[in-house]
């Protein structure tokens, strides 16, 4: 029995990190949006570690914020510890990471969603998508309601045909004891969307009162917290520490003795797991020379005893898990509250998506988050936001927002998955970005606020503030390049006190800041007229001056990159008809339908020789077009 459930512009299936961003974006842009989730208690739930950010991921959160997404604000409001990573290195790879109070994080996001105009949140499991003439027209749920829509975004995470694995105990299930979504996969496949099986795992949650922290090393947050959101001014909280401990030969011995009981080694698990989230048994087996592996204790929240044991995810049977956890110093008497498990799930082939995250098979149907084969809250949130924006732009009949690899990690992420395809869950790393020095976490607002404002997610007030900041940066840099420091003994004395060398002739403050050992704030002594500026402006001024040479170099590389990105390939190009293209390359190109020569060159299996052939083909197509043109005259 079905019944009509009402009409919506956009339906978002799944209220995880991707779905929350997608639904908020589409509703904020002004479309009537319905957000469905199997369980209302799973809104923005973190099924794995209780933290947001980290290398590469922290960059994504800042970009989400610059575009007008919610994740940055949400973690700012609910963090219990924060750290800027990589401070010993340069600004391009500084990365923020915060420990979250998981429940607080979920509740705040749920509240924001519930109070968002144009947005309705419902506990319903989608079982079918309704497609007419290749276009999405509605979504059916278990209760029989059919909701009509003009666009839909699937953000189903790890729930599709979810299967839980704890040693030889295996059953259908979603994360954290929630129900899996057993029906939607079939409907997707019926509509030409092929699926593959991926796998991921999580460690046990243990009871804090059974841990002995005195045997571990305390890990505290930063004294001064840098917020994720460009709109959060400061964060004042009492931070909660984490603890570090290590495995030992005894731990490894238990693993070795029981390895044949691990489904990873018996071949029972078919899903492909990520290399960067190896289970403890994988680490021990692969790196048997390593004498110890580090284990972090991360609290799951302020009002709970649950502790996430980072570094100890496992597929081993529960009895083996308990035995090996208890070998670790400080965990001798540990009690499990939730066991470690692995989960297998269905996801799509992201190469079947356009850069807008719309499916090539079904018009108006978008995909975001772990369903696309990625892993991680931040990766999910970033895609959700882009899918939400582009679904809205699709309904408006406008061109989609496509962030390119030189504009943001979001661009790198989406281009990677739709172009290169993936054979394991995809996690962001700064090494994936070629223009890392330009894609800093500190300048995400400078890179992306413009887009956020254009699509309607950044309001005028915030935009004006942003423009003012931009102007201040520009002015201060040009001012510093004009203030000259004289080569007199007093000034040289000051320079020496910074550990810098003397000057023989007048130098601008700008030039002084270019010296690695000289900091902006130190040069105040030479600069009586220095204006009072916000720290975030100072940060930009300093970075832009100090790394000017390298920034210029990367900008030149970007220019080269853009040339290839702007050599567009017509979508109807008949690849198999192009003589000289190797069959493998022609097939890949046909599947991915790259928008540009640049994108084509990043497809694995497409060689530079193929690109030359492609260029020749395009040139010839262009010339024959010209010929036709003259014929007509």
């Amino acid at each position, binding site marked *: 029995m079905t019944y009509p459930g009402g009409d919506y512009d956009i339906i978002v299936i799944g209220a995880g990190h991707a779905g929350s961003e997608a639904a908020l974006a589409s509703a904020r842009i002004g479309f009537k949006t319905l957000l469905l989730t199997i369980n209302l208690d799973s809104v923005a739930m973190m099924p794995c*570690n209780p933290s947001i950010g980290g*290398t*590469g991921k922290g960059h994504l959160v800042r970009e989400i914020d610059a575009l007008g997404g919610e994740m940055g604000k949400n973690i700012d409001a609910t963090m219990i510890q924060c750290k800027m*990573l*990589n401070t*010993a*290195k*340069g*600004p*391009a*790879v500084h990365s923020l990471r915060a420990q979250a109070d998981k429940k607080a994080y979920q509740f705040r996001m749920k509240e924001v969603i519930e109070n968002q105009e144009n947005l309705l949140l419902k506990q319903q499991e989608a079982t079918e998508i309704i497609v007419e003439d290749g276009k999405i027209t509605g979504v059916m749920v278990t209760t029989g309601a059919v909701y009509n829509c003009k666009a839909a975004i699937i953000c189903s995470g790890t729930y599709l045909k979810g299967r839980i694995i704890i040693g030889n105990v295996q059953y259908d299930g979603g994360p954290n004891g929630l129900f899996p979504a057993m029906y939607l996969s079939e409907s997707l496949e019926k509509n030409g969307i092929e699926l593959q099986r991926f796998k991921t795992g999580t*460690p046990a949650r243990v009871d804090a009162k059974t841990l002995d922290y005195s045997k571990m090393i305390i890990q505290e947050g930063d004294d001064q917290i840098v917020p994720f959101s460009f709109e959060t001014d400061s964060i004042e909280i009492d931070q909660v520490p984490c603890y570090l401990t290590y495995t030992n030969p005894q731990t490894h011995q238990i693993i070795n003795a029981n390895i044949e009981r691990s489904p990873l080694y018996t071949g029972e698990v078919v899903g492909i797991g*990520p*290399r*960067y*989230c*190896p289970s403890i048994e994988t*680490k021990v087996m*692969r*790196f048997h020379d*390593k004498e110890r*592996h*580090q284990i*972090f204790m991360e609290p799951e929240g302020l009002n709970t005893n649950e502790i996430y044991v*980072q*570094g100890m*995810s496992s597929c081993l049977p529960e009895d083996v898990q308990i035995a090996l956890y208890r070998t670790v110093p400080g965990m001798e008497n540990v009690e499990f509250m939730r066991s470690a498990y692995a989960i297998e799930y269905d996801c799509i082939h992201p190469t079947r998506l356009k850069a807008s995250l719309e499916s090539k098979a079904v018009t108006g149907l978008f995909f975001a988050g772990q369903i696309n084969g990625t892993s991680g809250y931040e990766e999910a949130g970033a895609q959700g936001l882009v899918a939400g924006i582009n679904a809205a732009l699709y309904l408006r009949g406008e061109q989609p927002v496509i962030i390119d690899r030189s504009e943001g990690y979001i661009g790198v992420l989406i281009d990677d998955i739709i172009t*290169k395809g993936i054979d394991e869950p995809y996690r962001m*790393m*700064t*090494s*994936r970005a*070629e223009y*890392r*020095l330009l894609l800093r976490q500190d300048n995400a607002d400078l890179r992306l606020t413009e887009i956020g404002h254009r699509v309607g997610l950044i309001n005028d007030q915030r935009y004006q503030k942003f423009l003012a900041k931009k102007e201040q940066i520009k002015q201060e840099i040009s001012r510093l390049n004009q203030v000259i420091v004289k080569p007199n003994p007093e000034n040289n004395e000051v320079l020496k006190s910074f550990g810098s060398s003397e000057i023989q002739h007048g130098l601008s403050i700008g030039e002084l800041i270019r010296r*690695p*050992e000289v900091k902006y704030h130190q040069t105040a002594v030479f600069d009586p007229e220095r204006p009072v500026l916000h720290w975030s402006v100072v940060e930009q001024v300093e970075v832009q001056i100090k*790394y000017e040479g*390298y920034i210029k*170099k*990367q900008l030149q590389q970007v220019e080269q990159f853009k040339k290839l990105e702007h050599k567009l390939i017509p979508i109807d190009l*008949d690849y198999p*008809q*192009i*003589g*000289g293209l*190797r069959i493998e390359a022609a097939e890949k190109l046909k599947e991915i339908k790259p928008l540009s020569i640049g994108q084509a*060159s*990043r497809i*694995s299996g497409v*060689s*530079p*020789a193929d690109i*030359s*052939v492609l260029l*020749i*083909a395009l040139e*010839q*197509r262009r010339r*024959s077009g010209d010929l036709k043109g003259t014929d007509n005259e």
Partner: protein
Amino acid sequence: MEALLQNEDTIAAVATGMGGAGIGIIRISGPDAVELGNKLFVNPRGKNLLTTNSHELVYGRIVDPATKKDIDEVLVSKMLTPHSYTAEDVVEINCHGGIVPMRKILKLVIACGARLAEPGEFTKRAFLNGRLDLTQAEAVIDIINAKTEKSLEYSVAQLEGRLSHKLEELDNILVEILSHMEVNIDYPEYDIEEISYDFVNSQILELLNKIKDILTVAETGKIYREGITTAILGEPNVGKSSLLNTLLMENKAIVTDIPGTTRDTIEEYLNIEGIPFKIIDTAGIRETDNLVEKIGVEKSKALLNQTNLVIFMRDISKEMSAGEKELIELLKNRKTIYIANKTDVISGMDVEIPEPWIPMSLLEDQGIETLRQKMIEMVFEGTVSQEADYLITNTRHIQLLETTKTSLENAINTMASQMPLELVSIDVMEALEALRGITGKAIGMDIIDQIFKNFCIGK
């Protein structure tokens, strides 16, 4: 219109450099190659190109179908698609009658309907038909350009991938360095070894040495490809033009007993034991009032700066002039071979010819062989100690290697100025990109793969 990339017409050209050794090949490639070749080919036993086997070499004559005139004695083979150089139907006519008949045959082939191939067009077709990858295509272009067999040999070696092998070694080291750097950046909290600039520095220095070695060899490669520019210098009338003629064994330069006969420079290509020389005969250098000659003299001096090797010649029967002394001074730091010509004139007299002068009499054919040996010796001296088993001759490759080198030097400077790791990584990445420009291999996932292979990271 879709068929634009299909190579629908038939092309022809001389496949080995004209004017080289005796045998030349005319290659015809394309759908009509066999039919076309057959029109010109006459076999004494009535064999027909249309029916011979692929890759069978048949003897016969080329006859002008219009006039029935006999042109040359040839060996012809046909190679059917896809088992040919271009992967198209190909006919190759091997003729040994020298330049003149070769030209005639080519003209006939074209008269019968083939189009004269553009430079490199066979290779382009081979390339477009998937027969060659990028390095191979470029090496083949070098084969086409190669002026002598020695170059040819090296180009073949390149084809066989010896250079690639060398480059792969560099590539592996670069990927290794980068993966160390990147794992430090992306996994700051893991107890992996903190990378030190000392380590990166020593690795890069080692790499730089390897690149410098290859570039040294590249110098030789360039010489091989373009010929060693050799200038014959000396006062008027000492016998410079005669020497050139002797070396070439044909009368090219004007030889007279009037001093100052050669008014301009003359260039000729010459092959000594497989090494190409570009020999330049100059106007004799001396102070002169004659304007035309003066221009030639200026040119000779300017030329000095573009030569790899100088042959300085004097007339041993004359006193050493002040001008000659001056010139010898000028040549002091160059690779120079000193020739004392016209020893026949002083034969019987007690004139001593000290080292390093090579006594020579062009009139009596003395000293030529010594000179030829000396020329070869000079080429190898200091450039390559032994014959390298690989060679890099392609200018684009050399440029890319230079870029690799510069980027690595930048990396060293970046570290020296205490810049952070991710900036050093930009330089090193640039080096890898330049290197990959030679092999055409995409960068893709290599570094990340290497990270997961070598380091135990991830939670």
